């Protein structure tokens, strides 16, 4: 249970102009599960390594429970990192791998053996202590890597893409295991992913990083309802973006004018911006004349199983609408439809 505060953290690799991480500030509550989310090369691993103490920051500080740990060497920091490709020591048995951290701390051999068995139980792989790393599957190796980190009872657990090397059903299994263990042990955990779905399902809070800059740090639902930028919205599957000008609580766009709900209106950028709304928040209506409704023609209809995706042509623009499978009323390609934009779901982001 350790509170982690990352303050103004910057990393500039020698020989590169652009910092890999730029003035990154983040407050991670004790015992929480936080996701570092972002596209490849945005600086997730770099940040994780700096928190682990494996990489020296160019500037900034990292505080564990208020104590600056930047000058504390990794082996004394108590922040244990699990690498993306497991990195089980190939010359050791599974038992020696799991027990490694305790051995380094001079724990008696009997105790280590007992704790190793406990940890193997915890990750649901009892009885593999005498095997070699190569005798385990990728998913099993990943769980051993997790056990090897947990046995040291870390202050902070750092997982670099713990699921990305696993195939689909193993991924779900591992994900559930991580959540269960994290809740049981209440260890402050940060995990890295480039998959927004994974972040949403797992994390208490998500730190969205683009190009070494923290774009948004919030609970998962915020990224759907209130993304801070068009890019953030897009990363979470947003597809509807229209150039917009807000005047008071009315937004004018090339496809029409929409009334904007009061609570959001004050916070939205005035003047030129971009209107965005998630495809599942749009409604297809029969009757015209409603406020906040535009008329268009269905250009394509894609059946995805649990839902159907429609592309509706409105003037010069495409509007994407998603309807769940059991919504009544058949809509076909070529139909003229009315698309309703709920006033409390409209969201404005700054112009890129």
């Amino acid at each position, binding site marked *: 249970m350790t509170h982690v505060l990352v303050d103004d953290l910057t990393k500039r690799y020698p020989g590169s102009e652009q910092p890999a991480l730029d003035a990154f500030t983040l407050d991670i509550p004790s015992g929480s599960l936080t996701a570092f989310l972002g596209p490849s090369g945005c600086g997730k691993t770099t940040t994780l390594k700096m928190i682990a103490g494996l990489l020296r920051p160019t500037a900034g500080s990292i505080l564990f429970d208020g104590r600056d740990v930047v000058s504390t060497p990794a082996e004394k920091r108590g922040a244990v990192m699990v690498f993306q490709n497991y990195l089980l020591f190939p010359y*050791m048995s599974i038992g020696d791998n799991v027990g490694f951290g305790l051995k*380094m701390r001079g724990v008696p051999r009997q105790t280590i053996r007992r704790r190793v068995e406990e940890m193997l139980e915890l990750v649901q792989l009892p009885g593999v202590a005498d095997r070699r790393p190569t005798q385990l599957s990728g998913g099993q190796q990943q769980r051993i890597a997790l056990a090897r*980190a947990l046995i040291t009872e870390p202050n902070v657990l750092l997982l670099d893409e713990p699921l990305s090397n696993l195939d689909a059903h193993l991924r779900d299994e591992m994900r559930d295991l991580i959540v269960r263990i994290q809740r049981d042990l209440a260890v402050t955990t940060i995990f890295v992913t480039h998959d927004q779905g994974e972040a949403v399902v797992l994390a208490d809070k998500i730190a969205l990083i683009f190009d070494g800059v923290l774009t948004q740090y919030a609970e998962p639902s915020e990224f759907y309802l209130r993304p801070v930028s068009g890019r953030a919205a897009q990363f979470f599957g947003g597809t509807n973006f229209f150039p917009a000008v807000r005047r008071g609580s009315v937004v004018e766009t090339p496809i029409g004018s929409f009334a904007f709900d009061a609570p959001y209106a004050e916070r939205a950028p005035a003047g030129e911006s971009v209107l965005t709304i998630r495809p599942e928040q749009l409604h297809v209506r029969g009757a015209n004349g409603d406020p906040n409704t535009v008329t268009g023609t269905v250009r394509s209809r894609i059946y995805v199983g649990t839902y159907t995706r429609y592309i509706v042509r409105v003037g010069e623009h495409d509007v994407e609408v998603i309807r769940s499978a059991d919504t009544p009323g058949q809509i076909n390609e070529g139909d003229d439809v009315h698309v309703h934009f709920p006033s409390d779901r409209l969201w404005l982001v700054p112009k890129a």
Partner: protein
Amino acid sequence: MASSRSAGAGRQEPEGRGTVSGGLASGVHYGALVVLLLFLIAPLIAFLFNAFAFRWFYPQFIPNEISFRAWATVADPNSKVLEAFVTSVGIALGVTLASIAIGLPAARALGLYAFRGKRVIEFLLLAPTIVPGVAIALGLNINFLRWGLAGEPFGVGLVHLVPVMPYVVLVLSGVFANYDTNFEDQARSLGARPLAIFWYVTLPAIIPGVMVAGLFAFLISWSQYILTFLIGSGRVVTLPILLFSTAAGGNAALTAAMSLVFIGPAILVLILISRYLSGESGAVGGFGKI
């Protein structure tokens, strides 16, 4: 012994070529191996015969009488053979340890990191393999005399490092070329201190390369004559030095016996290291870079 010798190259080669399973290509390989083996073993057999022979003259094919006189001389402290043996072992072991200690960090830098001037350093490292040792020894001799290193085993060991280091660094940098430093980071993150990381993580990964590099270092130092001669100023008597003067003396049996004393440890070291020389250990990767 006699039979293996009479089955010389002339008879063995066509036999190998005719092997049913392998066809012509593997037959040629087989024949080449036999020739190579004969090249390696024949002198040893000759030494063996010589070392134990007593009044062995042409046209006798093998000696008629066996004698241990040469070996008695070898064992006699007055012959200084054992003393030279100890000196040789001491210098070779010292050179081996020193070359690994210096070579490891150097090879790590060369194998893992890209930096300015890397190619120049790589070239300079190979230079001693091209420049004759005599030139280096003559150049160093004056300085070594001035520094009081000439005529000392330490100075001789130091100058042995010149031909040894290129091989050691070459082999070791090949090992580091395929080395993943993330394992070290992982160990550190789990609480391992630098020495423990080296012992539990780095060393097991590179030990085959270290062994092979050490083998080269030992053998190169072990067989140095000219550098030892020039820097040792006649006061550091290693086995090769003693061997040369004995050979010049014309006692064939003693020369052969000393040669065996000289070759023995080299073969022993080779056998001890041989399991690391197998292809799968990857230790010989360094040669890919030449």
